[in-house]
């Protein structure tokens, strides 16, 4: 192995796949942060975003920028629906014992898994299990040469979108009233309720925002990848989950940093090992992090309530 232009290309390849993971990890971590529950249906919101985007593109052939608001709207609607079906029924009891109950949290987790399976099977039924191609005018696959390094235009778009999303979320969380509410609920749901925050509305807002980000990620990755299928959310969902855990569960910048780290590690590992082993790298990094940094790389101690 040598530090030549091919090696540099591998780092860039890693950053582009890392950006795909990061794009998904942002919404995932936001939703986890507020409820302390893994939202298994995030991958399906991502897939719904991609399929709605494709349907709009094939039916109306609008300019690409017009597709985005539509996908955002569908993402928000599916986030609100998801919260209503899978999460709200488990918040019927507001006393402290129920809120700290492990069983309740696990039931919520399983109900999001159930919704994700139902949603995926419905999409399989409607669209079939095959890969669906994206019309060529919309693809984000033009090669862009930066010196000797080749990048796809989609990688640049995804990188820029991740940066914008991250910045906008930090602004929302730390500079607005809504963000203050989200942080309060995330910190202590019961306490937030006592000081007069409408926790239900805050949670619904979080789901809407997180799912908007998820759906946008889905259509962007679809345009970058060239094909979408009802199963497309699974693999990046697992990587986004690993990035979130490594980043310390509730730190969004931490999850993004870890997503990029995973992407680059996988890519560089391909230089040394057969690429069939690259998932081994991901999970080894996860295990190492959990053993040596139980709080995650960017986490800080907090009450796991």
């Amino acid at each position: 192995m040598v530090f030549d232009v091919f090696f540099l290309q591998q780092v860039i390849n890693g950053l582009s796949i890392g950006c795909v993971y990061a794009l998904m990890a942002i919404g995932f971590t936001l939703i986890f942060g507020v409820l302390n529950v893994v939202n298994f249906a995030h991958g399906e919101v991502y897939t719904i975003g991609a399929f709605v985007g494709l349907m709009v593109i094939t039916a109306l052939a609008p300019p690409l920028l017009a597709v985005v608001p539509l996908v955002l709207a569908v993402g928000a609607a599916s986030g609100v629906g998801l919260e209503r079906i899978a999460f709200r029924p488990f918040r019927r009891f507001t006393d402290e014992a129920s809120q700290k109950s492990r069983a309740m949290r696990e039931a919520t987790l399983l109900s999001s898994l159930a919704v994700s399976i139902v949603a995926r099977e419905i999409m399989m039924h409607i669209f079939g299990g095959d890969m669906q191609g994206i019309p060529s005018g919309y693809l984000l696959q033009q090669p862009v040469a930066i010196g000797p390094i080749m990048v796809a235009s989609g990688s640049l778009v995804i990188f820029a979108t991740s940066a914008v999303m991250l910045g906008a979320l930090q602004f929302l969380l730390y500079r607005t009233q809504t963000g203050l509410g989200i942080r309060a609920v995330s910190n202590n749901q019961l306490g937030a309720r006592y000081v007069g925050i409408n926790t239900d509305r805050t949670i619904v807002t979080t789901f809407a925002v997180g799912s908007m980000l998820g759906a946008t990620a889905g259509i962007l990755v679809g345009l970058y990848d060239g094909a979408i299928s009802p199963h497309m959310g699974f693999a990046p969902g697992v990587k986004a989950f690993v990035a979130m855990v490594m980043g310390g569960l509730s730190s969004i910048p931490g999850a993004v940093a870890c997503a990029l780290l995973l992407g680059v590690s996988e890519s560089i590992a391909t230089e040394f090992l057969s690429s069939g082993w690259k998932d081994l790298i991901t999970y080894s990094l996860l295990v190492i992090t959990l053993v040596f940094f139980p709080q995650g790389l960017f986490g800080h101690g907090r009450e796991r309530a």
Partner: protein
Amino acid sequence: MRKHAVLGAVLGAMLATIATAQAADREIVIGYQAPLSGDRSQYGEMFRNAAQIKLEAFNASGKLAGAKVAITFEDSKDDPKEARNIAHKFLDNSKVVGVIGDFSSTVSMAAGEIYAAEKMPQLSQTASHPDFTKLSPWQFRNITTQAFEGPYNADWILAAGKKTAAVIYIQNDWGISALDGFVGGFKAKGGTITATEAFNPGNRDFRSILTKVARQKPDVIYLAMFYEEGAAFAQQREQLGIKIPLYGTSSLYSPKLIELGRESVEGLHLATTFTPDNPDPAVQTFVKEYAARFKSEPGMFAAQAYDAVGIMLDAIAKAGPSVTRESLRDALAATTGYPGVTGATSFDPVTREPAKALARMTVKDGRFQVVTGP
């Protein structure tokens, strides 16, 4: 008296039946076992459709004077137990001289053990497991395996003057057999393999593999994968500006490859047994007849069955109207250059593995086209 008259009439009638049966042609039966119900029934259905076309054409051609051939279908439900019962049923029927089927390797081998012990020639149109033909000298197949396709493609690439290759394969049983078949054939003829790279099923990002492989600048990249991955691979190769030509296994042969991969799959080469676009008149006759009768375009599976029936009928014609199970086996083993719709088929007299002239294809102007020349 009345009783005797009735008895006499019955006897007379029986004698008359026997006499006419002797005067008419001998009936030779081929047993065909395939899944005709259950979740694999679409394959059995295609086999039966294709077999009927071939059989009618054969009986009408008069190639076999003094005998008529019929096919008896039995439904194996893609179940090994069912297949064994069918095997006993066919063995007990003295008119059955040979069996075609079953669909999957597992079921074909379950029945094959009985045919091997009881000496009945068996020809499967689709069983591709390496051990199937190793059961006994009574097993044949007319489908090629990666052990044949790999060296075939290796010869093709070397004949085009390309001496080094990198192999990208899917990490499963099939992918490994495709890798072994190609690498063995390529090295044996003096080629050099620069890299072999596996990827896990479901992987969509090939940029790292492409970058790694491109460093060694092989003359070609050989893809052992299916169309979803093949299309993504070709697109990412184009994005990375890598110009190394692509060759692939027949598993990439699907209209979906072009639909998903578009311009990026232009120039991809692959060899396949059956293509409905093949201008060969035998293929065109079959495609038109099948489409007219069954309202659908025949695929690879229907073509395999059409040729399996053709090969067996050809062998029966060679063995003559007094064909037995033994003489049919010997005639099958002697099959050379059978002009089928899936390429001219010959059986190796020792291993009974098929060799075929495959159709060489490339993607040109957005569709698969037959390549003539190297």
